[in-house]
């Protein structure tokens, strides 16, 4: 007779399930979204004028033409993520490593080879200064740096977690570099309607940089969540306090970035903040 299933077994492996669901759920949504959310927000806005909506539709069509569609990249990423989930759930690789690897894979996919489709003979640029900070505000990077430092401090007292924390912090830093590079990359315009094309480029640039930063800070958040579970009996009161404070800092940084990013997304997608996009009267 088979022994009865013990619910303890499920909860003992909770971090494994959580990471697996996190990886599957978020990667599915991010890969499916392909970074057009601010366009949907803008297009569906009551304030958008009919004329601008038409121009936006045309600019989106042009952008789709220019944008390289590396299907192999998405298929490869999805397959690698699936393999990663299986390896993680069968305990072949630890959850933190799966999370770091997954984040890096996804970050690389979210910044696909946009440049390769840009071989138009005539090159167009809008004469408007562009700041990287408009797409990637420095406070987000600061919050990320604080959270990563808190993780490093948190694991400093625990030798078996030190390497894990270091790897997660490195992964976050790499993703932040990718976000910065993406936010400061050149525009991709065809020149049919430079003003709307530039607006589209600005929205997508912001959205992709935002997604990358959210990815970087969320892996720190999940790491501290699991690290907090494993307190052990060997920690002194001061060590537990330090872990608690560090964990709190990571939580605050996570909520700060999440909240600010959402607010900014709403602001940049509002036609009333885009020159010539809003309808004249309500």
């Amino acid at each position, binding site marked *: 007779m088979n022994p009865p299933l013990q619910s303890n077994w499920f909860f003992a492996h909770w971090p494994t399930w959580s990471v697996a669901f996190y990886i599957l759920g978020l990667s599915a949504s991010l890969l499916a979204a392909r970074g057009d959310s601010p366009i949907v927000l803008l297009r569906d806005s009551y304030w958008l004028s009919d004329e601008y909506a038409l121009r936006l539709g045309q600019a989106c069509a042009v952008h789709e033409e220019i944008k390289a569609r590396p299907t192999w990249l998405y298929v490869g990423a999805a397959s690698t993520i699936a393999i990663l989930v299986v390896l993680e759930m069968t305990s072949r690789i630890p959850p933190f490593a799966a999370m770091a690897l997954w984040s890096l894979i996804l970050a690389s996919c979210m910044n696909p080879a946009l440049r390769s489709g*840009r071989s138009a003979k005539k090159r167009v640029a*809008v*004469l408007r200064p562009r700041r990287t900070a408009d797409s990637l505000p420095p406070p987000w990077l600061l919050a990320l740096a604080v959270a990563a430092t808190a993780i490093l401090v948190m694991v400093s007292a625990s030798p078996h977690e030190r390497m894990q924390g270091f790897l997660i912090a490195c992964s976050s830093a790499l993703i932040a570099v990718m976000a910065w590079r993406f936010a400061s990359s050149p*525009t991709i315009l065809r020149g049919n309607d430079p003003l709307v094309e530039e607006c589209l480029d600005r929205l997508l640039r912001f959205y992709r940089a935002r997604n990358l930063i959210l990815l970087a800070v969320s892996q720190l958040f999940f790491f501290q969540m699991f690290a907090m579970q494993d307190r052990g009996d060997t920690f002194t009161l001061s060590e537990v306090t330090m872990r608690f404070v560090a964990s709190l800092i990571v939580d605050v940084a996570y909520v700060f970035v999440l909240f600010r990013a959402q607010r900014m997304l709403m602001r940049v997608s509002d036609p009333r903040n885009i020159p010539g996009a809003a309808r004249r009267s309500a």
Partner: protein
Amino acid sequence: MSEVPLAVTVDPDLKTPPYLQIEDQIRALVERGDLQPGMMLPTVRQLAGDLEVAPNTVARAYADLQQDGWLVSEGRRGTRVAGSPPSFDKGTRIEALRESVDGFVNTLRHRGFTSAEITAALRVVPRQ
């Protein structure tokens, strides 16, 4: 903010070098009043990246325009349209027009057109 698409293009198929294409377009935008005095322009690096040209190309265009008084450099803060660009000086504008027409007419003469033919063609163009 302006709704006018203040864009510049670079066409590698043209015989005019890219730095001159950039120069001519910026000058024209200032002359038409689309680029207002004091307006900030993109950095050399940004414009070079967007136009897929070497930074030196844009730097040269900016330098020439600064030398002619169309733009002013503000060091690390960037480049602005000059407070009083030469286009607002009527004498300079007429002189620039005369120089362009002279160059154009000379090219046509080298190609064998007579003065009467050129004058007749020029009379037709404004009506078109």
